């Protein structure tokens, strides 16, 4: 028989009460927050995963905002191209009608005025703004890209946005490619990181940054001579309309006729542009959808990590309450009676 003393009793009672109450307290905290994790040590791995999921969710929200912004821009761009195309079609009809000798000089003068008007419209579209931002200025979004002569003063800058992780899309067309000409019809965008040369990021390699800087700096700012030549040779929308006006005023139907082919060329180019913008918008739409899906997945996963299973939790609480009650009863049995009560 092992000896039992008053204090060994008390130790046993205190310890078991303390244990049960601690568990109760813990469950109570979970019950009031409905979280299965209230501090990192509750489950270090789930905690870390939940945090990184939270980041994913926030990232996706931002990607969606970017996508919406891109949509706004692309819609405006598409609309503008559509209007330009209409203008060119109208001009082409006029050119077609005026390429024969059917009309006389006075009528042509009037028609010339109409074409001049069309040219102003085209110019207005070319200088269109979304907010305070010029749509067709490349990176020079705060200054007017086209002057009255239709000379482009913007640059070739393509603004890209990340609309889902590591997926970049161009959100603008430059005035140059819309109104002048373009050879590049691909919509593939490089990761901006490659443009800024990634080794810079590693803080240990800060040393020879300065030299590399000079070389790659002026990517978009300078217009090369070869580009200038293309301007002259190719038909641009404004010189085309200008040419048409002049030929009408000079009553020169044969020149008018020679412009027809160029009109066709420009219209074809614009249609291609529109298709390009349309396909970019499609990918924006699908990215938005997949972002949403990912967000929901991430939220579900996070909830399963962090939130308490309510049924399980409350059945645990009930069970623990019963344990506490029976601990009290058991302790009462030990504490209330002693031999002295029976010695008379």
């Amino acid at each position, binding site marked *: 028989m092992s*000896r039992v003393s008053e204090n*060994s009793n008390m130790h046993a009672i205190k310890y078991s009460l303390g244990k049960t109450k601690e568990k109760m307290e813990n469950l109570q905290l979970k019950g009031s927050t409905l979280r299965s994790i209230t501090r990192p040590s509750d489950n*270090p791995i789930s905690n870390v995963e939940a945090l990184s999921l939270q980041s994913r969710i926030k990232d996706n929200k931002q990607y969606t905002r970017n996508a919406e912004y891109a949509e706004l821009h692309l819609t405006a761009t598409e609309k503008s191209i559509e209007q330009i195309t209409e203008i060119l079609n109208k001009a082409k009809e006029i050119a077609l009608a005026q390429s024969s000798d059917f009309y006389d000089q006075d009528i042509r003068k009037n028609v010339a005025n109409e074409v001049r008007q069309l040219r102003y419209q085209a110019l207005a579209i070319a200088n269109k703004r979304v907010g305070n931002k010029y749509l067709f200025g490349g990176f020079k979004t705060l200054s007017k890209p086209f002057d009255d002569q239709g000379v482009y003063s913007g640059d070739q800058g393509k*603004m*890209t946005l990340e609309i889902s992780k590591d997926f970049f899309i161009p959100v603008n067309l430059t005035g140059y490619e819309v109104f002048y000409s373009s050879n590049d019809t691909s919509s593939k965008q490089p990761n901006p990181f490659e443009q800024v040369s990634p080794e810079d990021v590693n*803080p240990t390699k800060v040393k020879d940054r300065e030299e590399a800087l000079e070389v790659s700096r002026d990517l978009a700012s300078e217009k090369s001579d070869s580009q200038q030549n293309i301007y002259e040779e190719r038909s641009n929308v404004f010189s085309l309309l200008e040419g048409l006006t002049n030929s009408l005023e000079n009553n020169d139907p044969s020149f008018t006729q020679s412009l027809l082919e160029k009109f066709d060329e420009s219209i074809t180019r614009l249609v291609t542009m529109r298709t390009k913008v349309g396909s970019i918008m499609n990918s924006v739409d699908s990215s938005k959808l997949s972002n949403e899906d990912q967000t929901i997945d991430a939220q579900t996963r996070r909830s399963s990590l962090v939130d308490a299973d309510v049924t399980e939790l409350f059945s645990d609480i009930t069970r623990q309450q019963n344990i506490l009650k029976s601990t009290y009863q058991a302790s009462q049995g030990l504490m209330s009676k002693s031999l002295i009560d029976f010695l008379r």
Partner: protein
Amino acid sequence: MANILGIGNTGLIAAKKSLETTGHNIANVNTEGYSRQRVMQQSNVPINKSGLIQGTGVRVRSVERVHDKFVEQRLQKATSNESYSSYRHEELTQIENIFNEIDNEGLNNIINKFYNAFRELSAQPDNETMRSVVRDTANLVAKDFNRIRSSLDSVSRNIDSKIDGEIKDINAIAKNVTQLNVKIAELEASGSETGDLRDQRDVAIRELSKSFKIHTYSDERNNFIISAVGVGTLVAGSEFQELAAAGTSESESSNGMDGSIEVFFASRPAHKITQKFKSGRLSSLIRVRNEDTRRLQDDVDRLAFDFANSVNAIHRRGFVGRQIEQGADGRTVASDAKGPVTGINFFKVSDNPKDASLNLQLSDEVQEDISNIVTALSPNSPGDNRISLAISKLQHEKFMAGGTATIEEEFLKTVGNVGVEVGKAKLDAEQNEGIRVQVETIKERTSGVSLDEEAANMVKFQHAYDAAAKVMQTANEMFDTVLSIKR
């Protein structure tokens, strides 16, 4: 017949002493560290009387405390371990709170916001409002780095003052033990009972073993010795070595912080013993301060340093968001009325990671003028978002830990480690508490007072007392009988 009276008397005395001891036990039932006492009694030496061996009653040899010194030693060890792990758990929980961001915004959340602010800026690089949002968010990041680091620092500082208090307590207890040693030696010399004093000394020693792991023994001259394991003798009989604690300079301190408290013997101030204590509160506090907190301070510094530098490296490449004069050759002027136009740092950085998180803040340029927040890789291009895009992509770039982890992964690794450490400490604390309670129960089983037992003893001794009195009464009556013969 006088014998009968004498024998009855010894019984009376013995029963009375037993009753006294029972009373003493009952009175001390709730005294901490009290060991129950019991009367050791023995039959008196018999005498030879006319060829017959005859007993002469009972005598009380001694009053002894019921005590097992091996259980006591186990209890000391268990107490050391328990206070070590429960203090570790307590301190680490404070650190854990710094990194807890399940329901509130922590660094991870804020860094994420920072990158997303740049992502938003990349959609509208020509929007002034977005620039100030970026600046506000960046300020938040800097502040949160500051918060984490200064909270860690204050954990360290708190530990410093706890160590200081701990050393004072230890000295007081050690002094108390020496006084008890003296008293016990004196009483033992005069042959008195020392059970109660020994109990008091055991309580003091157990208190001491909460602070560090100790070893006790009596040397050949019966001096009671207490030594701190790993450090040396603390108490020897009536002498004790005083411990002292004092702040030291940054280069001398064991955790690289200026003014942190170090421990040494008062007689040998040049000889640091801070890290030599084993187990117990002291080494627990010191380990949290010198290892756990220290490592986290370094981690957070490294994180802040690399974070700031990575952003700076890209930020410096671009041009400011305002009109810049360009020469005929396309070259830009180096600086305008508002300062340089390129090569601007976003964060202010020093050249090494030390205290980087504590000092992290925006560079003066960015703080003063939001046009100094760079988005464009080429000058005079308000719509150029390449720099801000690249900064936002830093979020997914593995440039930490030798190119194996993103900044988020690296930070979450730190948070994960904190969680694991706290979890381990909690488990240890629970286990060690269980062990201590177990040993204490074992001790109380042998040494503790049982009221039931004492009640039974009381009845038993009372009966013995009654019976002894009856013996004397009988002897008295026998005298009466003999005396009445004469009448």
